[in-house]
C-alpha cells in the first residue's frame, strides 16, 4: 500500500492511471507537434523547413503507431477495447479516441505520406527486387501513373489533406487535454485551459523532436545540416514555447489568485511532492532555460557550431520538460485526496506491465519503427525519380 499522509478516501489511495497514461499524451503530443511542423512548409509555405518535411511526417507516423500501446497495456481488459469502436458512448471524450486516431492515421497521415511519396514508390517498385519489390508494388495500389498531371493532382490533394490535418492534429491531442480538463471531480485537471495547454506543449515537443532528429540524422549520414532550416525551426520553437509558457503561467496565476477550496491542498502538493518535477524540471530547467537560450540566439548570429549545440540542449530540455508536464498533470492529479486532507505516493514499478522497463521500451520502439520507415521511404530524396513510362491504368 502506498504511504499516505493525512486522510484520503479509502479507494483513492492506489493510483489508477500510471506512467503509461503519462506516456500516451506525450506520444500523441509528439505526433501532433511533428505534423504541425510539416504543415508549416506545406500550408504556410515556410520554405526554410522543407528539408524536414518528410522526416516530420515519418516521425509522426512512427509515434502514432506506438500510441495505442500504452493504452492497451494499461487497460484491465484490452481484449475488450474494440468496444470503443462498436459502442462508443458519445458523452465520453475518451470514446472519441478510436475514431480520431483512426481518422488521423488513415485519412490524414497515411494518405498524405502516400501522396507525397507516390512517385518514389512507383520508381522503387520498378527498380528493386525481391520482397521489397512486392511491398512497393502493393503500396502503389496497382497504379503506376506518375504523369506530371497525376503528380500535380497528388500535390493539390496533399495540400488539402495537410490543411484538414491541422485541425485533425489539434483534435487528436486536444481531446486528450479535454479528457482531463472536463473532469469536474478533480480540481487539478478541471480547466478550460487544459486542452489548449496540451496542444501548445505538444507542438513544442514535436517541433523539438523533429529538430533533434534532423540534426542527428544528418550527423549520422555525414551530411551538412541546413542551418537556415534549423534556425527557422528553432525560431518557431521559441515562439510557440513562449505562448505555451504564458498559458501555463496564466493557469497558475489564476489558481493562486482565486484560491478556491482546493488551493491549499494543491499548493502544498506542488511545493512538496511535485517540487522537483514541476518547479525545477518543468519550469526552471525545462522552460525558462530553453526560452532564454533560444532568445539569446535571436540577438546575435553565433557560429553554426554554437547554434547547433544550443539548439541540441534547448531541444533536449524541451522534450524533458514536456514529459514532466504530462507527469505533473496525470500523476499530480492523483497524488492528492479529493477531500483536500491528504496525499498518497506513487512509486513506479520496475518490471510490471505498467512499469518503468515497459515505458522505456515504448519510448524506444518509435525510433526503431522510424528507422524502418526511413529505410523503406527515404526522406532524403526531395525530388521524385525521373518519370518512367506509366502503364495504362
Amino acid at each position, binding site marked *: 500500500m502506498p504511504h499516505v499522509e493525512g*486522510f*484520503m478516501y479509502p*479507494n483513492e489511495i492506489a493510483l*489508477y492511471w500510471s506512467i503509461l497514461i503519462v506516456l500516451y499524451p506525450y506520444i500523441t503530443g509528439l505526433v501532433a507537434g511533428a505534423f504541425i511542423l510539416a504543415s508549416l512548409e506545406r500550408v504556410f509555405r515556410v520554405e526554410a523547413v522543407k528539408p524536414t518535411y518528410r522526416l516530420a511526417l515519418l516521425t509522426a507516423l512512427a509515434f502514432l503507431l506506438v500510441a495505442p500501446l500504452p493504452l492497451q497495456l494499461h487497460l*484491465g481488459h484490452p481484449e*475488450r477495447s474494440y468496444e470503443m469502436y462498436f459502442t462508443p458512448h458519445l458523452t465520453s471524450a*475518451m470514446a472519441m479516441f478510436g475514431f480520431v486516431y483512426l481518422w488521423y492515421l488513415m485519412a490524414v497521415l497515411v494518405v498524405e505520406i502516400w501522396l507525397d511519396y507516390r512517385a518514389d514508390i512507383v520508381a522503387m517498385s520498378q527498380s528493386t527486387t525481391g520482397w521489397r519489390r512486392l511491398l512497393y508494388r502493393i503500396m502503389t495500389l496497382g497504379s503506376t501513373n506518375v504523369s506530371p498531371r497525376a503528380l500535380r493532382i497528388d500535390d493539390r490533394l496533399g495540400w488539402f489533406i495537410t490543411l484538414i490535418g491541422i485541425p485533425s492534429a489539434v483534435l487528436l491531442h486536444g481531446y486528450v487535454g479535454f479528457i482531463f480538463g472536463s473532469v469536474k471531480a478533480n480540481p487539478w485537471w478541471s480547466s478550460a485551459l487544459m486542452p489548449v495547454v496540451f496542444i501548445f506543449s505538444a507542438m513544442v515537443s514535436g517541433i523539438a523532436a523533429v529538430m533533434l532528429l534532423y540534426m542527428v540524422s544528418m550527423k549520422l549520414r555525414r551530411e551538412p545540416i541546413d542551418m537556415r532550416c534549423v534556425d527557422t525551426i528553432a525560431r518557431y520553437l521559441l515562439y510557440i514555447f513562449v505562448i505555451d509558457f504564458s498559458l501555463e503561467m496564466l493557469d497558475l496565476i489564476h489558481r493562486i489568485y482565486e484560491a478556491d477550496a482546493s488551493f491549499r491542498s494543491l499548493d502544498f502538493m506542488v511545493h512538496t511532492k511535485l517540487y522537483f518535477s514541476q518547479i525545477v524540471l518543468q519550469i526552471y530547467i525545462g522552460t525558462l532555460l530553453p526560452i532564454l537560450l533560444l532568445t539569446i540566439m535571436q540577438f546575435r548570429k553565433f557560429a553554426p557550431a554554437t547554434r547547433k549545440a544550443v539548439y541540441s540542449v534547448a531541444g533536449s530540455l524541451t522534450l524533458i520538460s514536456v514529459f514532466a508536464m504530462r507527469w505533473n498533470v496525470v500523476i499530480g492529479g492523483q497524488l492528492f485526496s479529493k477531500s483536500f486532507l491528504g496525499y498518497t505516493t506513487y512509486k513506479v514499478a520496475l518490471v510490471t506491465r505498467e512499469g518503468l522497463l515497459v515505458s522505456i521500451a515504448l519510448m524506444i520502439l518509435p525510433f526503431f519503427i522510424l528507422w524502418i520507415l526511413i529505410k523503406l521511404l527515404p526522406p532524403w530524396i526531395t525530388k521524385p525519380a525521373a518519370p518512367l513510362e506509366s502503364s495504362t491504368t
Partner: protein
Amino acid sequence: MNITRRQLLILLPAAAIAWEHVLAGTPESAPNYTMTEHWWGMLIDIPKCIGCGNCVAACQKENDVPDGFFRTWVERYHVTDWNLTNPEVISPDGGKEGFPAVKEDENGKYFFVPKLCNHCADSPCTQVCPVGATFITPDGVVLIDQKYCMGCAYCVQACPYGCRYIHPVKHVADKCTLCYHRITKGLTTACCEACPTGARQLADLKNPKDPIHEFLKTHPVQILKPQMATGAKVFYNGLDGSVR
C-alpha cells in the same frame, strides 16, 4: 433444534406463505418487480451513527468486496478548536472493525459519516464511460456491467466522492450496487440490514408510503459536495459543514 424431514416439509411451505404475507405489507417487494415504479436512494442519519462499522463488514460479506477496497466505508471526523475548515479525519480499514476509542475533546467534537456510492441522477461517472459499461438503471441505481467494462478507470477518476475502484482480481471497475440483487427482491441493502441503530435506511423516492418523504419534510438534509451538481440520491441528516 433438530428438525425432521417431515417437519421441514410442513415448515418450509408454511414459512414461504408467511413470508409472502410479510413481504406483501412492504409495497416495494412485489414478486414481479417493475423498474419504472422505483427510484432508489438512501437516507443516512448522522446523529444515529455510532461508528461500529457493521455496515462495512456486512457489505464486504454480501458482495465479496476485496480487501483494501470499499463499496461503503465510515469516516470519523474530529473537528478541533471549532475549526470547520480543517477537520482530522480517519477511516482505518474503512471503519470495518470500528474505530479506536477517544477521550472527550472540550474544544471540539467527533462524529461518524458513512459513505457509499451516491447513485447520482446526473452522474459524472456514467457520463465519461467510453463504452457504456456503467449506467443508471430505470429505477435509479448506478451499476457496472462487469462483462463489458474494459478497466480504463476513467469513471474512477470522474467520481467526486471516491466511491469507485478497480477490482484487483477482475480488473474492472467496481462499486456499491445498492445491493441491487436484494432490493429487487424486496429486501433492504446489506449495510442497512446490519446497521444496529437505523442510521442507514434504504429509500424508494417513488413510493409514496416510504418514510423518507416524511423525513425530508421535517428535517433539513444535505448531500455530499452539492457544488458538483451530481444529483446525488444519498441524503444526510445532520451533515456537518466540515464534511468533505
